[in-house]
C-alpha cells in the first residue's frame, strides 16, 4: 500500500528530475511553447503604461505566505517583478494590493527589487503596496481595491493569486472605469468570474509558467517541461483508472 507521504515524495522527485531534464533541453535551444494570450499582452501593456505614463495595478488577492497559497503568492510576485522591472523606468510607481499581511513585505520587496534593478530608487515608494483587510474572500478588500484603482486612475489591473467571489466587485469596478483586467485565481469560483469579466484569463497552472514566458531562465523553462510531464502522468493515471473500473 502506497502512503500519501511516499506518493508526495515520488511526485516531487519526478518533478525535480523532469525540471533538470527540461533545463538541459532549454539550454541547448529555446523550446517552442504554446502561445498564451495573457503573456503576449502583458509586455505590451507594460510598454504602453511607460510610454503614456499610466499606472498599472497589481493584486495578489488573499494569497499568503505560510498557507496553502504560498507558492501562488511567490509565483505571482515573480510575475509582478518581471513587469515592474519594465515599469520601473517610469516615475509612475505601480500599485500592489493584497489582503494578507504576510504578503505585504513580499509585495514591497518585489517593487523594491524592480526599482533597484533599474537603479531608479528615487521613484520607489514602499507605500505603493496596499494592504486591505481582511483574509480570504473579503468583500471589504474588493471594495477597497476597486476604489483605489479608480482613484489612482490606473489603466490596467493584473490580478494574480487567490480571489473568490469578491473578484466580481473588483472586475465590475475595473470595467466601469475602462481598465483592462487580466486575471488568474487558484480558486474555482474566482476563475469562473474571471472568465466572464476579464479581458484575458490565466487558467489553472498557467500562472506557474509565467516567469518562463516573461524572459525566463533555462530552469524556469525546465519547470514548464516538468509541468507537462506531470500533466501527462495525471492524464494516463485517470485513463488507467477508468479502464480498470470498466474491466
Amino acid at each position: 500500500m502506497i502512503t500519501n507521504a511516499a506518493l508526495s515524495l515520488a511526485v516531487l522527485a519526478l518533478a525535480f528530475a523532469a525540471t533538470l531534464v527540461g533545463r538541459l533541453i532549454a539550454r541547448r535551444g529555446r523550446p517552442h511553447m504554446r502561445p498564451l494570450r495573457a503573456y503576449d499582452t502583458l509586455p505590451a501593456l507594460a510598454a504602453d503604461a511607460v510610454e503614456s505614463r499610466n499606472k498599472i495595478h497589481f493584486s495578489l488577492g488573499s494569497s499568503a505566505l505560510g498557507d496553502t497559497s504560498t507558492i501562488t503568492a511567490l509565483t505571482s510576485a515573480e510575475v509582478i517583478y518581471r513587469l515592474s522591472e519594465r515599469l520601473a523606468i517610469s516615475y509612475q510607481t505601480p500599485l500592489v494590493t493584497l489582503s494578507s499581511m504576510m504578503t505585504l513585505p513580499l509585495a514591497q520587496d518585489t517593487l523594491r527589487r524592480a526599482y533597484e534593478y533599474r537603479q531608479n530608487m528615487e521613484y520607489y515608494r514602499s507605500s505603493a503596496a496596499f494592504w486591505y483587510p481582511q483574509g480570504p474572500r473579503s468583500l471589504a478588500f474588493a471594495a477597497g481595491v476597486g476604489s483605489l484603482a479608480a482613484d489612482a486612475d490606473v489603466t490596467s489591473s493584473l490580478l494574480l493569486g487567490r480571489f473568490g467571489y469578491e473578484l466580481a466587485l473588483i472586475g465590475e469596478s475595473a470595467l466601469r472605469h475602462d481598465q483592462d483586467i487580466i486575471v488568474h485565481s487558484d480558486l474555482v469560483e474566482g476563475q469562473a468570474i474571471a472568465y466572464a469579466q476579464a479581458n484575458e484569463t490565466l487558467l489553472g497552472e498557467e500562472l506557474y509558467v509565467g516567469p518562463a514566458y516573461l524572459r525566463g531562465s533555462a530552469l524556469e523553462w525546465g519547470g514548464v517541461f516538468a509541468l507537462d510531464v506531470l500533466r501527462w502522468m495525471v492524464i494516463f493515471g485517470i485513463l488507467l483508472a477508468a479502464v480498470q473500473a470498466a474491466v
Partner: protein
Amino acid sequence: MRRHRLTHFLATIIVISSGIVMLIGLSVKPGTMPADLASFTLEVVSVTAAIAVLLGLLNLLTVHLNRFIKAEHGWPYSIITLFTAIFVLVLRMLDHVDVWPDDMAGEQVSPHLFEAVQVSLESALAALLVFFLVYAAYRLMRREVTPWHILFTMAVVIVLLGWIPLENTEALADLREWLVQVPVSAGARGLLIGVGLGTVTVGVRVLIGQDRSFWG
C-alpha cells in the same frame, strides 16, 4: 553588492532548510523529532504572522495618514478609516482590561461591533454579486459571440432558473443538478489539479533555492 550576496545566500539557506524540515516532518509519524521540528517551524510562522499583523496595521495607517496630509482624492474617507482603526483598537484594549460597568461585566464589545458593521456590510455586498455576474455574462456575449461564451451564458441561465421554486420546473432543477455534479465538478477538478501540479513544479525550484522571488 557583497551584502546582497550574503542576504541571498542566507535567504536561500533558510528556505531550503525549512522546506526540507517540513517535507521530512510531514512524512514521518507525529511525535518523532523531525515532526516536532516541523511543528516548531510552523509555530515560528505563526509568530511571524502576528508581527505581520502589526506591519499591516502600520501600512494602513501610514497610507491613509499620507492621503489625508496631502489632501489626495478621497481624503475624507481616509479620516474615517483612521478614526475607525484607532477607535476599534482602543475598544479592543478596553475589552481586555474589562472596564465596562457591572451590567456589561465580562462582555466583549468589539466582536459585537464587528458583527454589526463588517458582517452586515459584507452580506449586503455579497447580495449584489449575483447581479454583477448576470451582467458580466451579458457583457461577455456583447463583446464576442463564441461557442464557449454561449455555453457559459446558457449554464448561467440554467443554474439561475433551476433555483426558481416553481411547480413543473423539476426538469430544470435536475438539469442544474447534473450540470453542477458532472461538467462543473469535472472542470473544477481539472483546474485544481492544474494548480496543484503548478505548485509542485514551482515548489521544486523553491526547494533547490533557484526561485528568486524571496531573495530580497
